[in-house]
């Protein structure tokens, strides 16, 4: 049933009848690009292209000490994941090996260099500079070698359904979560914190990031930049950039000149007339730090820089060149491009002033960019690479400065690969991207991949987090934006503080990677764009686009049609020129894209604001986009034909072919604004008919340009799994999205091979009877997370109030909800700085002689409560009359019962709580050399771990090889002496739920070649009262009662008894109509053996329709409405009402009563306050809080209050001096200097502590004593 090849239950394999089957493109799409394609594409781009770019930018190192020496990087490449075994011997790695052995799945980075060595240039190729962690299933991943799922499973031990897209760092799977950010290098008109209008641009180039704003304050315009101490009048900036005359400036801006007058006047009053005046003015307002920075980064010859201090003017010019709008290229001191861009910003501000509604919407999804693994790793690599080069330079400076050297300086020997390897590893494993060079300080960039269930994995890979503060109570960024349609799942977001800030990508949404824009630039010019430099200011000013929107802001009645207005052409936010027929330009560009001449992810859109009309072309990374079916402009029909779908069925067509033929194309939110997208074919056909009529009346009509592939694709992977999602109240779907990630089920095909820290597995998972298309798209049916339980919607027993469920005991006996919990207990055998190392010793009790360590064990286990209690329960410690030594021996034997002769438990052995898993022994002294050492060990010394390991190994062997059979006298002496320097540090089994069984014991070696033992312990858990269950409709509840089957009602015709009784009160207020539908459809599916489809927004036809389902019920002898006659299991009488009865898919959630259940009598106390600790994890006390105290006081039970709050908590006997009221010693008051007035007082220790702390703050607290009542 689990074989995907035969999964013809749904329509996946049925013949194509008409274009309604266009949704079959989705599996094709997902096959070509799996769910996490964006992660992989982004990483591939980084490895293949961006790495080379970074090296090209930073690939030249020179030294101050020698003019001859240099280092030049020629090329860089990344190998396949492997680890160096010895020099020149590489061992290939697989992801599974890395998970199991706590290694990093990383590939070596090689460079080709040219450097000066032995008096000549020398090239070295394939020089190793460090390891780069490799994303699973990326172009460098070894899993791509597998040609089939079988090979993947057999050769690589990898789950074929595992999506990849994450990293394995020291054995932990970590995801770089998608980060949502505001668009870079684009102008945004907004209000600043003071409420002034401003146009801001966050520029980001390979070298630097900066934020420039044009502010409109008090009728005047200013430039704001964080390197300037104050806002600079914009006219001053223009003058500094070389545009001196006011007329020129006005012409450049070409907006209503009267608005500019105050600004112009202001500059005159400041006395800034010439360019040098302006530069000096700016130079005086530079922040001191940026002064140096701007000067340095300006490409001025080194000698010049060294010789003299730069003048104010030079500094200001350097600032304008490099820090103001750095994304705009600036050739020498030709500031014309920057001036133009500034003028545009001013126009934007002024236009927004005329019409305050035209402010840009920051939450608009076209203004967002998603930052993926690629760009983030690129930043990190650039930083590390620069650090590596700086280290090399420093080293070279040192060595080359020496007058006489024994050896010629060889750069290949001083490359420290740790810089890059550790840098990557540390950033990925901690999630901290702290790059000072880029002023970046981000935390939580990576997260551990949640491996609770398969859905959790998929959900995590499509997660988007935004940088907004969670505490801010603004609704804007949290709200669902219309432009997120089809890009971001409307349902899948967490509740609570991060609601709406954490989002999930929709099923078909893709994220673009960067594309080279040179081809587009060429094309844009070739298609008739006039270069902006070729246009005189006068041309720009007089051009129609600028005039028509200016002035009063209303277009004159006789103004030419919008299409006729010329438009500015932007490519990636840079102004290229002007085009006289913008709609022709966009059409031609789109035609080129559809033909495959331009990249598929290129986006072309027109915008028409009051400030200007523009054509934008974007090739940058991080835009979200989604595929849509193209409607032919001329014919008004869909380009997708029936034959395409038929070819697709036969496997003749690939996704790329559809793209190449212009049948589908990707649109981003910006371009979607230019498109009219039909929701379904009917809409399109209706449009056709309307058009014929309308065409006679007018020439232009709204014509559909695109068609949705399938409406359910607006949902994400998690929300898509909800059956009948369109019938539910919206928040219920959100709840279900959160809960499906906690459902226990099958996690991966290799779930038993992986060594996860904690793993919940359902013993008998079932695929849902009622499923959606997304179930098959995501392969949820192959790794399901629930069971089809027969549900009776009725009240039973009263243990079902407040959403509690009643579960059939016999069903539980048959395996309903039975699950396995696997826990990992890792033990690492460390080697210490002084050469000593951890060892494993055989079970103590098997040897008869040694008793000393046993004593040590007793003390070791006493600190852990619970153990003693459980042991006494099992009766092993019934040792009242025995000798204490013998009792300890018995107890020890009990705890060691599962140990093998090698000191590690053997798989299959049952474990009582507190049992020893690995009998590890640690040296007591780990830092310094022990004073006494016998012969062979004295050589160990303070050497590295590896060599020390060999030497200390001999000593350890002597210690460990004591199986009790062959030991000569000297050996035993040495080993007992050795023992005295060692203390036991066993790994102890302790888990909620009591006893477990050893599942497997894995022995391996970690990154540092230390032995690593992972013991997996298994528990099988039945359903008990208090366990959490949920259906797929956000309907969660705990098990309230598990009555015997005989007591449950049975079905009149079939004798079926329900697995679960669900209280009908859960339905009306929640409005989860989908659940009702699921029951009917599921019942029909169970009766006729055909799975039912419940995809959202899709009209249900054929077997899937509710009518057809009801017919099936009727035919099989059930009630048409699904409500059947039941007989009471207790009285045997028919129930008075008909009961809604049928299968519903239920998920068992990970929250189980055993894990939560807790209580204590005595236990640990906090050191400071001596009160019981808090929390289950610390074996803490149960708090008697204020409200409980109040109620006790209300009852007048004050002695009980006293008992709970003092005697049972932190009672303390203090001594108080009656005369002065201070605390003192038993017979001495230090204040009064006498001891005769001391009184014994019982008070809570925390109270005494408070008095003392107050005293420490110079607040007197005196106790006045009276007679005890």
């Amino acid at each position: 049933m689990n074989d995907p090849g035969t999964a013809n239950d749904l329509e996946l394999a049925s013949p194509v009848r008409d274009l309604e089957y266009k949704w079959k493109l989705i599996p094709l799409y997902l096959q070509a690009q799996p769910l996490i394609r964006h992660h992989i594409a982004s990483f591939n781009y980084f490895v293949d292209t961006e790495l080379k770019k970074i090296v090209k930018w930073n690939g030249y190192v020179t030294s101050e000490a020698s003019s001859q020496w240099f280092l030049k990087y020629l090329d860089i490449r990344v190998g396949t994941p492997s680890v160096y075994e010895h020099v020149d011997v590489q061992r290939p790695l697989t992801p599974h090996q890395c998970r199991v052995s706590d290694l990093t799945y990383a590939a070596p980075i090689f460079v080709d260099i040219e450097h000066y060595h032995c008096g000549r240039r020398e090239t070295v190729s394939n020089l190793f500079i460090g390891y780069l962690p490799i994303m699973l299933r990326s172009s460098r991943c070894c899993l791509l070698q597998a040609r089939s799922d079988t090979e993947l499973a057999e050769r690589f031990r990898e789950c074929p359904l595992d999506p990849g897209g994450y990293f394995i760092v020291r054995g932990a799977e970590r995801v770089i979560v998608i980060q949502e950010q505001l668009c870079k290098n684009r102008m945004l008109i907004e209000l600043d914190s003071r409420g002034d209008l401003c146009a801001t641009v966050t520029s980001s180039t390979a070298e630097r990031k900066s934020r420039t704003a044009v502010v409109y304050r008090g009728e005047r315009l200013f430039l704001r930049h964080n390197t300037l101490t104050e806002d600079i009048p914009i006219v001053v900036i223009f003058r500094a950039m070389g545009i001196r005359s006011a007329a020129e400036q006005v012409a450049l801006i070409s907006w209503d000149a009267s608005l500019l007058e105050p600004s112009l006047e202001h500059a005159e009053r400041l006395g800034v007339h010439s360019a040098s005046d302006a530069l000096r003015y700016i130079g005086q307002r530079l922040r001191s730090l940026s002064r140096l920075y701007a000067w340095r980064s300006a490409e001025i010859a080194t000698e010049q820089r060294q010789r003299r201090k730069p003048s104010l003017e030079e500094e200001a010019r350097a600032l304008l060149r490099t820090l103001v709008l750095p994304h705009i290229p600036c050739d020498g001191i030709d500031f014309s491009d920057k001036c133009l861009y500034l003028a545009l910003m001013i126009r934007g501000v002024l236009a927004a002033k005329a019409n305050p509604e035209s402010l840009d919407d920051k939450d608009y999804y076209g203004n967002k960019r998603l930052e993926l693994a690629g760009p983030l790793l690129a930043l990190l690599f650039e930083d590390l690479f620069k650090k590596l080069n700086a280290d090399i330079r420093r080293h070279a400076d040192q060595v080359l400065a020496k007058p006489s050297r024994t050896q010629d300086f060889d750069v290949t020997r001083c490359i420290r690969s740790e810089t890059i390897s550790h840098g990557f590893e540390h950033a990925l494993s901690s999630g901290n991207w702290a790059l000072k060079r880029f002023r970046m300080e981000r935390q939580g960039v990576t997260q551990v991949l949640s491996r609770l269930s398969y859905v959790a994995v998929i959900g995590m890979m499509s997660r988007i987090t935004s940088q907004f503060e969670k505490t801010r109570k603004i609704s804007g960024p949290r709200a669902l934006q219309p432009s997120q349609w089809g890009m971001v799942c409307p349902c899948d977001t967490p509740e609570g503080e991060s609601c709406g800030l954490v989002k999930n990508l929709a099923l078909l949404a893709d994220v673009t990677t960067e594309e080279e824009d040179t081809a587009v630039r060429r094309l844009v010019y070739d298609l008739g764009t006039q270069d902006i430099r070729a246009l005189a200011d006068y041309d720009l000013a007089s051009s129609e686009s600028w005039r028509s929107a200016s002035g009063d802001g209303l277009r004159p009645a006789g103004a030419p049609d919008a299409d006729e207005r010329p438009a500015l052409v932007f490519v990636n936010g840079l102004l290229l020129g002007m085009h006289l027929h913008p709609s022709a330009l966009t059409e031609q560009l789109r035609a080129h894209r559809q033909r495959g001449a331009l990249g598929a992810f290129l986006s072309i859109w027109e915008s028409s604001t009051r400030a200007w009309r523009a054509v934008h072309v974007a090739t940058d990374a991080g835009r979200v986009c989604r595929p849509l079916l193209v409607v032919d402009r001329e014919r008004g029909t869909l380009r997708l034909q029936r034959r395409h779908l038929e070819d697709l069925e036969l496997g003749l067509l690939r996704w790329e072919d559809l793209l190449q033929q212009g049948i589908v194309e990707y649109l981003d939110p910006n371009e979607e604004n230019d498109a009219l997208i039909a929701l379904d074919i009917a809409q399109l056909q209706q449009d056709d008919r309307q058009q014929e009529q309308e065409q006679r009346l007018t020439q232009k009509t709204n014509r559909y340009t695109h068609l949705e592939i399938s409406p359910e694709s607006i949902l994400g992977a998690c929300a898509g799994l909800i059956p009948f999602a369109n019938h539910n109240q919206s928040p219920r779907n959100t709840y279900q999205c959160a809960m499906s990630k906690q459902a226990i089920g099958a996690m991966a095909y290799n779930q038993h091979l992986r060594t996860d820290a904690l793993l919940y597995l359902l013993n008998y998972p079932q695929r849902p009877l009622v499923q959606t298309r997304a179930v098959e798209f995501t392969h949820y049916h192959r790794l399901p997370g629930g069971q089809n339980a027969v549900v009776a919607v009725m009240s039973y027993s009263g243990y079902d109030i407040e959403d509690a469920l009643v579960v059939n005991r016999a069903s539980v006996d048959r395996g309903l909800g039975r699950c396995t919990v696997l826990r990992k207990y890792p033990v690492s055998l460390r080697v210490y700085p002084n050469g000593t190392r951890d060892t494993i010793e055989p079970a103590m009790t098997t040897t008869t002689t040694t008793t000393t360590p046993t004593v040590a064990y007793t003390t070791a286990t006493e600190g852990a409560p619970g153990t003693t209690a459980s042991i006494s329960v099992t009766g092993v410690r019934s040792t009242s009359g025995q000798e204490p030594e013998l009792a300890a021996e018995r107890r020890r034997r009990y705890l060691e019962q599962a140990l093998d002769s090698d000191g590690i438990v053997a798989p299959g052995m049952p474990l009582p709580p507190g049992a020893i898993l690995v009998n590890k022994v640690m040296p007591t002294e780990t830092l310094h050399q022990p004073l006494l050492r016998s012969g062979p060990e004295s050589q160990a010394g303070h050497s590295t771990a590896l060599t020390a390991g060999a030497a200390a190994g001999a000593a350890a062997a002597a210690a460990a090889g004591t199986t009790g059979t062959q030991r000569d006298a000297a050996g035993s002496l040495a080993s007992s002496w050795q023992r005295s320097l060692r203390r036991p540090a066993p790994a102890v089994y302790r888990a909620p739920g009591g006893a477990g069984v050893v599942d497997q014991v894995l022995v391996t070696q970690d990154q540092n070649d230390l032995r690593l033992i992972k013991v997996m312990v298994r528990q099988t858990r039945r359903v008990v009262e208090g366990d959490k269950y949920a259906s797929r409709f956000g309907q969660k509840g705990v098990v309230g009662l598990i009555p015997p089957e005989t007591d449950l009602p049975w079905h009149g015709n079939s004798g079926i008894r329900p697995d679960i009784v669900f209280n009908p009160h859960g339905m009306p207020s929640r409005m989860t109509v989908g659940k009702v539908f699921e029951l009917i459809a599921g019942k029909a599916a169970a009766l006729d053996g055909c799975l039912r489809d419940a995809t959202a927004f899709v009209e249900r036809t054929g077997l899937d329709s509710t009518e057809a389902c009801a017919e099936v019920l009727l035919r099989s002898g059930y009630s048409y409405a699904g409500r059947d006659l039941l007989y009471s299991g207790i009285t045997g009488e028919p129930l008075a009402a008909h009961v809604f009865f049928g299968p519903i898919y239920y998920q068992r959630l990970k929250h189980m009563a055993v894990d939560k259940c807790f209580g204590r009598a005595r236990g640990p106390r906090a050191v400071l306050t001596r009160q019981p600790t808090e929390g289950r994890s610390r074996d803490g006390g149960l708090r008697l809080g204020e409200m409980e105290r109040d109620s006790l006081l209300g009852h007048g039970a004050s002695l009980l209050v006293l008992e709970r709050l003092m005697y049972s908590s932190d009672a303390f006997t203090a001594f108080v001096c009656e005369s002065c009221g201070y605390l003192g010693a038993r017979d001495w008051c230090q204040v009064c200097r006498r001891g005769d007035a001391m009184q014994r007082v019982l008070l809570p220790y925390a109270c005494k502590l408070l008095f003392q702390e107050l005293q420490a703050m110079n607040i007197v607290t005196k106790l006045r004593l009276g007679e005890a009542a």
Partner: protein
Amino acid sequence: MTRYICGECGQIFELDVNETVRCNFCSCRYVYKLRTKKPIQLEAR
């Protein structure tokens, strides 16, 4: 000496406490302990 089974090729071999973990047949670096030979009694629930 305890017997281990190689994680990749399934070869069974013995491994000393201080030896490098490495299968002599496929040079695999992780091994599993063999299941205990002791009779195990489990409580069915």
